[in-house]
């Protein structure tokens, strides 16, 4: 308990940065992932191919490598300089977007065929069929997998600790500089993560109840 109380400044800044990483990456990943999923079912072959290539390549690349590239490689390219937090958010978003895209696509597949047929029968073009009819229903169906993607994202933010972002994963290094026991600090970090994951799961159950599809 003392380790936590005497170093509450470290824990608070650490987890604040973790939550910042989480929220921004979650929003960007949700938007990008939905677009990619839409591209994957679009009628234009080139768009489908692009989205499939993106998903297949990034899903087979370790997150650590993605962050490695953005945190250490990108500055060498002489483009607009970005700080480590931004680099981590870009990396996390690009990585998580592929998982969001797969979740949304599986949701699109669960929407009954009749829905899309009805939309086409009243003359809606593809974009409207997708945005007005299919996606709203697909999102409701994919709340559980979507939340496990976001829980994974929350846990993945710790990887950014290896790339000079001060967040929850980096608390240990700072604690040992102050001579605090590493194990106690790490166990506290783990406990906070368990609580955060628990909150997200509770939110998931609530949303599932609220947005249940009546069929």
């Amino acid at each position, binding site marked *: 308990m003392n380790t936590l109380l005497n170093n509450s400044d470290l824990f608070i800044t650490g987890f604040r940065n973790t939550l910042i990483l989480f929220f921004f990456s979650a929003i960007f990943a949700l938007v990008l992932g939905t677009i990619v999923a839409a591209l994957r079912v679009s009628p234009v072959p080139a768009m489908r191919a692009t989205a499939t290539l993106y998903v297949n390549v990034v899903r087979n690349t370790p997150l*650590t*490598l993605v962050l490695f590239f953005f945190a250490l490689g990108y500055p060498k390219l002489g483009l607009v300089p970005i700080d480590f937090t931004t680099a981590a958010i870009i990396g996390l978003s690009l990585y998580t977007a592929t998982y969001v895209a797969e979740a949304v696509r599986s949701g699109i597949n669960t929407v009954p065929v009749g829905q899309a047929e009805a939309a086409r029968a009243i003359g809606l073009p593809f974009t409207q069929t997708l945005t007005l009819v299919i996606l709203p229903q697909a999102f409701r169906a994919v709340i559980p997998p979507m939340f496990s*993607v976001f829980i994974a994202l929350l*846990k993945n933010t710790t990887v950014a600790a290896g790339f000079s972002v001060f967040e929850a994963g980096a608390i240990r290094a700072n604690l040992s500089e102050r001579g605090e026991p590493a194990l106690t600090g*790490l166990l506290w970090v783990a406990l906070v993560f368990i609580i955060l994951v628990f909150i997200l799961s509770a939110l998931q159950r609530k949303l599932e109840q609220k947005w249940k599809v009546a069929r």
Partner: protein
Amino acid sequence: MSSILFDAPGPKARSRYRILGVVTALVILLIVGFVILRFAQSGQFDAKKWQLFTFPLVQQTIAQSVGATLSAFATAAVLSLVLGVLLAFGRLSDRRWISAPCYGFTELFRAVPLLILMMIFYYGLPTIGVQGITPFTAVVAGLVLYNGSVLAEVFRAGIESLPRGQSEAGYAIGLPKSKVMTSILLPQAVRSMLPVIISQLVVILKDTALGFIVTYNEILFQAKYFGSQIQYGSPIIPAAIVAAVLYVGMCLILAAFAKWLERRLSRKPGAAVTPAAAVPAEV
């Protein structure tokens, strides 16, 4: 190409799609071209930066780091499959004093970030006097605890998605529960959950890269080391490209193997009829 989401294109739509296709291709070419141009302009393709990777000794070291990644992956994969089966059986046990701890165990280790687990093993345990924790043990132990818990859920979902008649038939011919589980339910569950199991194995392979942070001598760790050699112009981007090719290649081989295995298994008569339940792999 028929899809339920759009009508078969007529002549107008077809020309529109063609234009959109060309536009997409142009945008992609523009982005890729810009990246390559930037790489070239900032000298990432200079021979000096790649020279390092032509030395036999360096290539040997890279091969060793691939070996390190693969040995961590193989050990962790086998052990997490075993742990997953044990935990799944535990959770399905009729005795509460077995099922409750197994439930707690899976929930606990799925909620803790893998990196924190590895750090607990690598930095935490030695401080309370646990000896002989190498980076390898830390990486493997973290991977096994996390992925074992995830796989336990996968196996359990697979077993529960089987028709009830399967276990009932087993009991009817007088098999004990352990026998029903191991010789009737588990083989079918594994078959129907194979895609999910394989994608979880890909996750294990990718997550070995976290060993980079707890100083395990794997591909990414070597890449960073070579990338920071100043006398060769700190070729961090060439090193990242080499690492990316190795990782994506290994994952694609694993995925191809999975596809082959799936086809082979589904060819057999009496293959499981239940499609894989929608349990997504944990990232």
